[in-house]
């Protein structure tokens, strides 16, 4: 199955050719414009490449094998959120609490 490709921008493809007529040699060189994709298509091409090279081979792992690991990452994200919010809360409390009356010993 051929991989669906976004059609490149249509560029005229001109090539070098020789025309030989009776009694006369004519050489005509036309501009050869390279077939390039425009800059607007490159992000799509990068996404295509990512999907083709990463997602397609790894899909059974990401969707079936690593289900429990995704759940573990959710647990880790929850723990990180709890730690950060506790840190923020304690810093806010320290900033808002008054300076103790007695000085350092």
């Amino acid at each position, binding site marked *: 199955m051929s991989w669906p490709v976004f059609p490149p921008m249509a560029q005229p493809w001109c090539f070098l050719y020789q025309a030989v007529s009776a009694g006369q040699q004519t050489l005509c060189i036309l501009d050869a414009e390279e077939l390039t994709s425009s800059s607007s298509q490159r992000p799509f091409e990068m996404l295509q490449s990512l999907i083709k090279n990463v997602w397609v081979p790894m899909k059974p*792992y990401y969707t079936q*094998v*690593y289900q*429990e*690991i995704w*759940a*573990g*990452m959710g*647990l*880790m994200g929850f*723990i990180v959120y709890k730690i950060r919010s506790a840190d923020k809360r304690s810093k806010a409390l320290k900033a808002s609490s008054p300076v103790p009356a007695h000085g350092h010993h």
Partner: protein
Amino acid sequence: MNENLFASFATPTMMGLPIVILIIMFPSILFPSPNRLINNRLISIQQWLVQLTSKQMMAIHNSKGQTWTLMLMSLILFIGSTNLLGLLPHSFTPTTQLSMNLGMAIPLWAGTVFMGFRHKTKAALAHFLPQGTPIFLIPMLVIIETISLFIQPVALAVRLTANITAGHLLMHLIGGATLALMSISPSTALITFIILILLTILEFAVAMIQAYVFTLLVSLYLHDNT
């Protein structure tokens, strides 16, 4: 001197931008992907090493456990290469950060536990009570086993952090001592330099052993739950 000692463990920034993500991603470019049936020498050696490690590590697992081969091989390669790269002078080692190691340990450990509870619930619950326990000890032992289960990811992370950090700190200290002693007593400086060389050799071994231990323990937790 104290400030210099811990400066190498600070998260690196370049002109105010954190580059720790780049440093974490860097070891991946040192492992070229095989793109032919028969590759060049470097890739062949890499393939041979990965095959040797994966065969030795995954032999104990059933088919369910062997689906984690890719994950465990990536893990050992990542931790091993990160630890070894950290032995270069003035480099930053991501595995000295507890946050990074907890970020690796918690999802993997939780993954194995969830897998055990999902596919073999009775066997997973049975782990909380060893066989042959006297009846009057059951409540206490269930509490102890629960605590030992929840301590597993913390132990995994702290073990790696402490080993790598301690080794780097020791090298800093002994290197600083060697430098300081050179003007005072060159013979003592020579002894400390020999100690530094021996310590560096030990650190190379510790870097690889810690990667192996981390991965082996995750593999064992997986084996218990599959």
